[in-house]
């Protein structure tokens, strides 16, 4: 139940009502005051003051002054008249309720309208600003365009002038040429046998044309057998200069290189060299050298060369345990297995090597050829000739100029045809 505030005092003039409402000790903010055109409420819980005004007021212009424990309302009447009392006398509960609701609704609508109006003005302001900037920029652009136009015209005029000059000069020259030709013909008739070395007046490249006579320089055709050749040096004696072109890691120019693939291959190689497999526990008692896959590979190669194939295989096995990403280890182990006639192992190793030799770049061509050839040989020794032929043909595709591979492939083909005829 709110505590009603009933102590208030008011006085009026024809156009306004002055109402003062004491609020001892209460803090009032504008939020506590609610006013529409016929309803006034001050609510500071638990205190409440409410008044249904006698006649409508202009609530937008009316004011409320808060201070000194009192609110002082200045309400401007809509109609100039004297009110009998501040509030309407007979107001029952329902009427009050409906009035209150109306008041609230009205206030809402008003608030809405105000925001709408605000938005609209804001838009207009923005538009105006935009237009103003656009105009400024247009003006700037136009100014530059005008300057450019002026330049153009000036320059065009100059050009026309220059061109006329050229034309006139040309005409002059032509007339002069004809005159000279005449003269020359006569001269030649006179000086047929004598070779007179006339000096020519060098023609310098200035923009003004020269109207000076150019006697003796009358060249009417490059091959005219005249005195010109004695003024110029003879054609130089023919010679050839041999050149080399810059080489690159990959023999393609930057613009042709399949750089992505080549980079990938290089990266893979680098990574492969860096991987060391995890189980080093058993290998702790090995010497430092023996932990290096490259060193082991070299050892293996040496032993292969001397014919000690088992030892070579051991070396490669250890190397593979240390680093299973180096394709060359598998490749070389395959060769050992071939020699030891472990054909299945040879095939396995060649296949593993081929797997590791991707992406296909010119750099690993050699390795791939070898892998195919070794696998092919193993297949053939197992009498799986078709598979062997497939591998040989793959090798040939990479290296078509290799005679040995070609010959071997031919041999296999004959073998296949031979066996099919037999069966």
């Amino acid at each position, binding site marked *: 139940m709110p505590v009603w505030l009933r102590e208030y005092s008011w006085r009026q003039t024809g156009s306004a009502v002055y109402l003062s409402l004491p609020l001892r000790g209460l803090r009032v903010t504008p939020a506590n005051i609610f006013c529409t055109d016929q309803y006034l409420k001050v609510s500071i819980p638990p205190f409440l003051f409410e008044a249904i005004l006698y006649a409508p007021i202009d609530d937008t212009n009316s004011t409320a002054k808060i201070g000194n424990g009192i609110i002082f309302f200045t309400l401007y009447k809509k109609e100039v008249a004297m009110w009998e009392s501040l509030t309407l006398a007979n107001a029952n509960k329902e009427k009050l309720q409906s009035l209150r609701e109306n008041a609230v609704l009205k206030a809402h609508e008003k608030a809405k309208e105000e925001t709408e109006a605000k938005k609209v003005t804001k838009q207009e302001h923005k538009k105006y600003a935009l237009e103003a900037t656009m105009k400024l920029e247009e003006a700037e652009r136009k100014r530059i365009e005008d300057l450019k136009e002026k*330049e153009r015209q000036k320059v065009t005029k100059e050009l026309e002038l220059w061109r006329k000059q050229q034309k006139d000069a040309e005409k002059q020259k032509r007339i002069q040429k004809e005159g000279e030709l005449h003269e020359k013909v006569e001269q030649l008739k006179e000086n047929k046998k004598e070779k007179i070395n006339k000096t020519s007046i060098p023609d310098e*490249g200035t923009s003004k044309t020269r109207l000076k006579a150019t006697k003796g320089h009358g060249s009417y055709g490059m*091959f005219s057998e005249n005195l010109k050749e004695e003024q110029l040096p003879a054609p130089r004696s023919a010679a050839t200069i041999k*050149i080399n*072109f810059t080489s690159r890691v990959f023999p393609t120019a930057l613009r042709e290189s399949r750089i992505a693939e080549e980079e990938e291959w290089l990266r893979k190689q680098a990574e492969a060299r860096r991987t060391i497999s995890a189980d080093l526990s058993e290998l702790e008692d090995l010497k430092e050298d023996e932990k290096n896959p490259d060193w082991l590979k070299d050892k293996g190669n040496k032993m292969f060369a001397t014919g000690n194939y088992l030892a070579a295989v051991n070396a490669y096995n250890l190397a593979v345990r240390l680093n299973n990403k180096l394709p060359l280890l598998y490749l070389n182990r395959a060769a050992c297995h071939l020699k030891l006639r472990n054909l299945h192992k040879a095939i396995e190793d060649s296949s593993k090597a081929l797997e590791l030799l991707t992406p296909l770049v010119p750099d690993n061509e050699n390795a791939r050829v070898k892998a195919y050839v070794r696998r092919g040989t193993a297949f053939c020794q197992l009498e799986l000739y078709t598979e062997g032929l497939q591998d040989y043909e793959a090798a040939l595709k990479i290296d078509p100029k290799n005679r040995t591979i070609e010959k071997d492939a031919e041999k296999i083909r004959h073998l296949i045809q031979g066996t099919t005829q037999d069966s």
Partner: protein
Amino acid sequence: SGLERPQVVSHAQQALSYTLFDCKWVPRSARLLCLGSAPRGTGLLQLYELRGGRLALLREIEKAKPIKCGTFGATSLQQRYLATGDFGGNLHIWNLEAPEIPVYSVKGHKEIINSIDGVGGLGIGEGAPEIVTGSRDGTVKVWDPRQKDTPVANMEPVQGESKRDCWTVAFGNAYNQEERVVCAGYDNGDIKLFDLKTMSLRWETNIKNGVCSVEFDRKDVNMNKLVATSLEGKFHVFDMRTQHPTKGFASVSEKAQKSTIWQVRHLPQNRDIFMTSGGAGSLHLWKYEYPTQRSKKDSEGAEMGVAGSVSLLQNVTLSTQPISSLDWSPDKKGLCVCGAFDQTVRVLIVTKLNKV
């Protein structure tokens, strides 16, 4: 106040019905030549005259093979014969007044002649008139119009070496009767400098990207500067006055744009200003500034060059297609013609070059 920097003003343009490969001013005139390839696979030469703000077609000459490049560099001012290289590897020299039969003709190369240059003519430089051609067959050959069929110099790959396309050639250092050099750029980024007096390779380097265009700032003086442009928007300016025994020539390089720089051409009237044309249809005007000291001694006491700096004066985009050819008029400062792959030839005027 007006605009301060040099402006590139478009004066006239002409739409063509064929692919334009090269355009050149006819010396001592307001006429220009367009060289290219007609749709039916023949070569086309068109002679235009600048009249008012338009180009008027004076002559059209059709030849058997498409024409890739041309130069007036080796003829006298009176004759003004045009030397052309075509797609079949033939070098021809034409008299434009009577173009039915060439004045000189040789099947110089096995493949297309990509680039041609001439020296000793037009009153510029001294010595014999010579023409150099660079071709896709990897050779660079120097011809003298007075000697039929065989070149006077031949720069070819060693036996067994895989060949690289030669994309551009330029003459330089022709300051007296004997001296002459040829600079050639290849598609793998090689730049080679051949000395024709000693018939040897004087210098070579590699700039990693294919070399589209090389030019000396002046053909007829002691080698001063060489500009080489390449793919991927880079160009290098070499200071050619001081050659270090191992490091060669000093250079400064600039990356102007993302696309290929097709051509570089120095202004005939000022050798420190040059224009580059790009694959995105743009033209850039540059000025080179010399360093305070052009050479200095290195730790062993050998002289080495010091490169200066390059600044951009102006740039403009004219087309969406590459501008493949560019030529300054030797007679009117600032007048230039450029041809682009959008089948348009444009005449431009660059203003305020006096004040640069």
